[in-house]
């Protein structure tokens, strides 16, 4: 009965001040919604166990070079050593990503495949939907070609044929017997749509053949990733001593599949979590303050209740119901917004990839989201309700009853108000710096200057199957024919065939410049640069700026010509000369052996050949070699758009299929679209932070204004007294502004320190310079100073707008 009447009373109070109620509910919905959303989003992307039995223990083991984690593959012999010695993990498996072409009625289609050991499926404890998976015998060189299909291929490519197990399929022109179909939603390790036996095993392939794989294993219960890393480092150090030529600088590390997706951006992830917590604290402080001011207003009512003998528990409960209702309703709205936001996130993140996002990216309100939501809700109810309620019922009731004025709680409430403003300034400046760094990184990546003209270019990819294009000569021949066909097309004014588009990475071999001394630490002694193979005319197609020498021409197509064009960043960083033309460079193979010398024939302005945000900090140099001298299987085609995109796409496919009808052209899109898609995750996170920044600015501005207005309103009588004693308006205004400035400084200084630290941690992976972070911090401090000063000035002027007599007689 008493609870019901307390709820009724709280509801009546909320209904009495609808704007107050709406504001507090809105603030709580914003705070809870944004923070829970970000926690849920991050969890799904990075921490949620994979949806398999023992999914939380599945790890990937990859290599690093010179301490830089680069998700490198293992030589299978190195991985065999890891398997034998790594005690913290079990059930080792290995795979290699591959892209395959499957012939169909309407032309060939490209699919992502995992060439994996037979035990890959056991690792995930997943049985096939139809048929079986590989046997160990099928994982040997010379065994019959077999393939396990993914559910999507079975459904779409084979029309869910129930007799599928009696069929074969041509993969890269070779027949494979279909032995099984995996269940729907199975894409392990990442986006695999079909699985073939790996067939590279140490017993059959020599170390020198350098077959490369990515390791998989189950982390033993109780063993942390850090412990595995320590063990891996020791194992790899021993291998480095044994094989200094090939393994110098090579190490290994373990990580979850999720972490590998974060791609070295874990610092951003932790900062985002911090920002989410800060937003929630900011919202809680705001609502707590609003409820506290209300509690102070109601101190006389509470005092009367105490005088009438109300027990403390009852008083607490009554005061708590109000915050419970506000947080509950705000939380519910927030949770609905989270659901909506995650639904949008699913749609948006699907566009990050040309194929499909990692299979564990299944955004929605799950058990974790609800757990976080309820934990946050209880926390906010405590902060926003319990503390003001406790303060209120522990006030000096006698003074309140005797005096009947607001002043009785004024002093302590005043101190708390100051602490609230300081806290709000601190929190908001921290969040704003973090948000600004992220937004700046996202903006710079989206509108990056790649050093070339990326407009009006239609690009597509082809992968020459190893089975049909086994030799360099076959690949060279294909590309020369393709180039000739493209040149003959009237619809394309210019074209390019390359191993990597601007913004896309390729090989990064170690490189040596003739006449320069390098250390004796094997591969680690040499600098690395992007090596991009291009056909003559390619650099002109993207309008690369020639600074010295010449572009490639047909004479460079000769296999033994050995010419190279470098970027000016290469000259600046790796060469001690101002006359690079005619100088020679040499590539160092991964086994430490040295390749032939190449002569520099041209220098072009720096071209970004990686993610623009990563290139920002390092300006990774590149060199371009004629395709004929370095043929590749993975090829990009770019044509200048003159007609509409659709007919250009059709023409591009037609040209390729005229040469090889079984060769699919995939990922056809404009270059700008591809580049935009590449930075889409960063843009998305940037977008989230725009929301965070706006919310935090809004929360901080409204919160600081609310606290200041409340403080000044509580001091109206004091203002009246001071004016009666002769204080001028300007004097009182100055007094309040000074007090506001003090609070601003007390909040801004630690806020700047923390914000700059977090901002710096984020700035490195997303390519924002520290100078930009510092300038941003100064600007944001200015904005927040303006907010604080306005939040002080306006209520002060309102208090001063009445004659002193009014202030003295109406408080």
């Amino acid at each position, binding site marked *: 009965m008493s609870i019901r009447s307390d709820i009724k009373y709280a509801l009546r109070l909320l209904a009495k001040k609808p704007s107050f109620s709406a504001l507090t509910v809105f603030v709580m919905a914003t705070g809870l919604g944004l923070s829970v959303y970000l926690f849920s989003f991050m969890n799904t992307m990075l921490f949620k166990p994979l949806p398999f039995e023992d999914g939380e223990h599945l790890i990937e083991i990859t290599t690093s070079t010179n301490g830089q984690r680069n998700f490198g593959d293992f030589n299978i012999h190195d991985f065999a050593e890891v398997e034998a010695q790594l005690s913290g993990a079990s059930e080792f498996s290995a795979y290699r990503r591959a892209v395959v072409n499957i012939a169909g009625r309407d032309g060939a289609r490209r699919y992502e495949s995992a060439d994996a050991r037979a035990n890959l499926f056991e690792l995930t404890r997943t049985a096939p939907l139809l048929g079986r998976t590989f046997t160990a015998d099928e994982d040997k060189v010379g065994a019959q070609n077999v393939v396990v299909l993914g559910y999507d291929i079975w459904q779409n490519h084979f029309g869910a044929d129930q007799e599928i197990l009696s069929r074969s399929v041509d993969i890269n022109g070779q027949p494979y017997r279909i032995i099984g179909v995996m269940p729907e939603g199975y894409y392990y390790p990442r986006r695999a749509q079909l699985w073939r036996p790996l067939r590279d095993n140490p017993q059959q392939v020599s170390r020198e053949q350098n077959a490369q794989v990515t390791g998989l294993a189950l982390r033993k219960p109780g063993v942390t990733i850090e412990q595995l890393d320590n063990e891996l480092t020791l194992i790899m150090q021993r291998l480095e001593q044994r094989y200094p030529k090939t393994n110098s600088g090579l190490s290994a590390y373990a990580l979850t599949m999720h972490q590998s997706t974060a791609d070295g951006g874990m610092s951003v992830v932790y900062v985002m979590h911090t920002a989410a917590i800060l937003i929630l604290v900011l919202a809680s402080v705001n609502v707590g303050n609003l409820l506290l001011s209300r509690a102070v207003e109601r101190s006389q009512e509470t005092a009367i209740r105490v005088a009438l003998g109300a027990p403390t528990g009852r008083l607490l409960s009554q005061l708590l119901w109000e915050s419970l209702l506000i947080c509950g309703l705000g939380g519910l709205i927030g949770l609905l917004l989270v659901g909506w936001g995650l639904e949008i996130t699913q749609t948006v993140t699907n566009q990050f990839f040309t194929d499909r996002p990692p299979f564990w990216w299944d955004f929605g309100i799950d058990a974790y989201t609800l757990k976080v939501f309820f934990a946050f809700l209880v926390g906010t109810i405590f902060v926003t309700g319990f503390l003001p309620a406790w303060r209120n019922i522990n006030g000096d009731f006698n003074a309140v009853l005797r005096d009947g*004025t607001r002043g009785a709680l004024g002093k302590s409430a005043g101190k708390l108000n100051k602490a609230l403003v300081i806290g709000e300034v601190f929190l908001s400046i921290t969040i704003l710096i973090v948000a600004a760094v992220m937004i700046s990184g996202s903006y710079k990546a989206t509108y990056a200057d790649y050093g070339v003209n990326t407009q009006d270019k239609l690009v597509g990819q082809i992968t020459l199957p190893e089975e049909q294009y086994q030799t360099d000569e076959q690949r060279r021949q294909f590309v020369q024919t393709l180039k000739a066909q493209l040149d003959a097309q009237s619809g394309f004014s210019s074209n390019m065939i390359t191993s990597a588009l601007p913004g896309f990475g390729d090989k990064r071999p170690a490189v040596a410049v003739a006449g320069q001394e390098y250390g004796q630490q094997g591969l680690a002694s040499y600098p690395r640069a992007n090596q991009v193979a291009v056909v003559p005319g390619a650099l002109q197609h993207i309008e690369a700026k020639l600074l010295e020498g010449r572009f490639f021409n047909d004479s460079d197509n000769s296999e033994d010509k050995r010419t190279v064009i470098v970027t000016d960043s290469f000259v600046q960083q790796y060469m001690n000369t101002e006359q690079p033309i005619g100088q020679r460079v040499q590539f160092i193979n991964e086994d430490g052996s040295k390749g032939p010398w190449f002569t520099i024939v041209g220098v072009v302005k720096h071209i970004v050949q990686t993610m623009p945000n990563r290139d920002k900090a390092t300006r990774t140099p590149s060199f371009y070699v004629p395709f004929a001298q370095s043929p590749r299987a993975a090829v990009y085609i770019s044509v200048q758009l003159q007609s509409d995109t659709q007919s250009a796409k059709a023409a591009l496919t037609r040209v390729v299929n005229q040469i090889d009808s079984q060769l699919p052209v995939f990922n056809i899109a404009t270059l700008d679209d591809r580049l935009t898609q590449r930075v889409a995750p960063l843009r998305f996170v940037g977008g989230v932070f725009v929301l965070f920044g706006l919310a935090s600015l809004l929360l901080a501005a409204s919160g600081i204004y609310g606290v200041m207005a409340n403080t000044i309103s509580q001091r109206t*009588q004091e203002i009246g007294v001071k004016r009666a*004693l002769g*204080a001028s308006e300007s004097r009182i205004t100055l007094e309040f502004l000074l007090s506001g400035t003090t609070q601003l400084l007390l909040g801004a200084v630690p806020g700047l320190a923390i914000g700059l630290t977090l901002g710096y941690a984020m700035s490195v992976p997303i390519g924002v310079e520290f100078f930009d972070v510092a300038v941003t911090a100064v600007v944001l401090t200015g904005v927040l100073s303006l907010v604080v000063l306005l939040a002080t000035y306006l209520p002060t002027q309102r208090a001063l707008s009445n004659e002193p*007599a009014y202030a003295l007689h109406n408080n």
Partner: protein
Amino acid sequence: MTQPVLALKNLSKVFFSDDLETHALNDVSLQVYQQEYIAISGPSGSGKSTLLSLLGLLDTPTSGSYQLAGHEVSNISKTERARIRNNQIGFIFQSFNLISDLDVMENVELPLTYRKDLSKSQVKQMAADALAKVNMSHRTNHYPSQLSGGQQQRVAIARAIAGSPSLILADEPTGNLDSKNAHDVLALLDTLHHEGATICMVTHDPRSAERAQRKIEVLDGRIIADHKTHTAQPELADVVHS
């Protein structure tokens, strides 16, 4: 008493709220001379507090003239009004109106800190003198909440007289006090008057009013009576040793 300290002529004050006009003061004319001690009395809502607010430049009249020490002050700027309040007027309020965050000494120093012509040491000395006058020197470091009502009002009086104002305005100064403390405060006002202060006191209490030299009765915003009373003599010893 040839030159009045303050002179009101046809002074009116109208409050406007929600289309409602309230004539708080209506055509009031009044002259108060140096060293006069006047009591303003009347029932609640009669306009006596409004009159005191206008006299103290805490509010502006709607019409009429107000001369303070020979200067017209009815339409001067807010800054000028603040300067006059600070230099020439001392206020004593019913609810003391001490600043709770400031200690006794700081409260008394407060009006003096608004003056640009006083050094820090002068401010301290003047505040200490004022506190000594009301026998509160032993409580300088206490906060208002640590004092009794009577002590708080004595501090408020010290604050009002610290700057040696030519006019002291008291709004129901004994309204929140028991009879013993009320008596002490009135005795203190008597002493101040005896020492040359001009005092205008709003009061309900006929006995308090009787201590003034002149009693003005206000009803419905008009002065309905203005007459001499039996002047009470100050008993300083009563105050100092209370």
